[in-house]
């Protein structure tokens, strides 16, 4: 699975924008969801200031989540199920100009 961080979020993960990750299914669950992915990211990828990325068990306000170039609101947010080779992008909204 590919993950991309944009809008400054990459700074939370060693300034690396694209992460190719392989996540093992936990407890024999047959499906991996966005919820699983976020908790995996929080434990394994975020190097500093987790509050800049997450709030509770979801992303913080101002972060858009895209699964295969589509807003995760359209695919069930945290319940979006993920498959091999899916591309997940996290974008922090920008305000500058």
């Amino acid at each position, binding site marked *: 699975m590919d993950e991309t961080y944009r809008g400054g979020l990459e700074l939370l993960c060693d300034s690396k924008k694209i992460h190719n990750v392989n996540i093992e299914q936990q407890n024999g669950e047959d499906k991996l969801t966005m919820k699983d992915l976020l908790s995996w990211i929080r434990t394994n990828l975020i190097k500093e200031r987790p509050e800049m990325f997450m709030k509770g068990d979801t992303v913080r306000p*101002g972060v858009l989540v895209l699964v295969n170039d589509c807003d995760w609101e359209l695919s069930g947010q945290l319940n979006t199920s993920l498959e091999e080779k899916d591309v997940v992008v996290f974008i922090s909204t920008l305000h*500058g*100009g």
Partner: protein
Amino acid sequence: MSASEWEILRELDALKEAKATIARKISALEAQLKQIQLQNDAASNAFSSSSYSTNGLTQDMIHRYSRHLMLPSFGVQGQANLLKSSILVVGAGGLGAPALLYFAASGVGRLGIVDHDVVELNNMHRQVIHTEAYVGKPKVKSAAAACRSINSTIQVVEHQEALRTSNALEILSKYDIIVDATDNAPTRYMISDCCVVLGKPLVSGAALGLEGQLTVYNYNGGPCYRCLFPTPPPRTACQSCADGGVLGVVPGIIGCLQALEAIKIAASVGEPLSGRMLLLDALSGRIRIVKIRGRSMQCEACGENSTFTQQKFREFDYENFTETPLCVPPVKLNLLPSESRISSKEYSEIILKKEPHVLVDVRPAHQFKIVSLPKSMNIPLSTLEVRLPEVSSALKKEEENSGAVSGSSAQLYVVCRRGNDSQRAVQYLHKMGFTSARDIVGGIESWAHNVDPKFPTY
């Protein structure tokens, strides 16, 4: 500066002012003359202009916009729509600059500009509508003059004020399409809400660093800004171009794309970028267009049961909502007792008296490279924890070099850009046993302001 220099500068200013006034008079008279000649031509011509089918476009218009008219998908109708349209650009900065130039050039009938700021030298690398002659003058004046010099046949309206809930409804209601070219979260929420209550399409762009974003809100049943971002982000997640930096051409690209989207809507051609968002990653050369959610039924502003009215808009506190002031003076923290702080003037005396000390500059390394105080050592705040031993050894070395003379121990001072991070650093240093550490109030900006006016600021 000597009296004679002042004299010359004053005279130069006066002459420039007079020159500008004459230039304005010349262009006004030229336009007037052209108008009269046109009328005379029309009157004297055996074929009155009305005998040709020009769909309301004048001879000059047909010539000026001929390349638009030649486009089968734009054509006379597109241009006629554009000429009848009105567009308001909020913000004459990095995004607004190219957008305004294209709006003026393409013949938007009435073009409004809102901005309260003045042109600064550090704007010029990206705000390409302004010229050096306008540094220190209002951006609205500068942008309007540039638009008029490109196209004297359109109406340019100057709104030299900050957009607020008290004036936004009145200003925005006079235009068909709104372009958000601002630089902060509270204004973005305010413009979106105002567009919702007035039923205006909003072309929204943003740029920072090497990235840009673009979408059209509140268009034909599409989502508004609040549908996408119902809760504002924490203030710490909102960087400005002044703090984060921005490559000039990036807002330029997004501003041009905003012009494109607004022109499409004004001319009623093509498919506006509604329900989709364009993401520009300039560094890797990638543009992505993603599908975003539609209008949210639960949206506070535009949802089914929304009670957001003009009255509510006027009373809404956007600064409180986003926890960000509308006019952003840099935050001035006050974390330390006064005995743990010294002024830049006091520090300059310490240098003059050659008192033994170590100066730690806690700015990020790339900022330290821009300019730094003599003999300062750079330990960015984020690395202070692991680099504490370097502070200890620098202090020790300083004491060895001067110890016999003064007998006293070397002092530890901390500096940053504006005097906030330096306080955080000193707080940490106190905790780690460097109890005499002090920070320089106001950072290197204060040094430039109060000690050495030749010290570069950024």
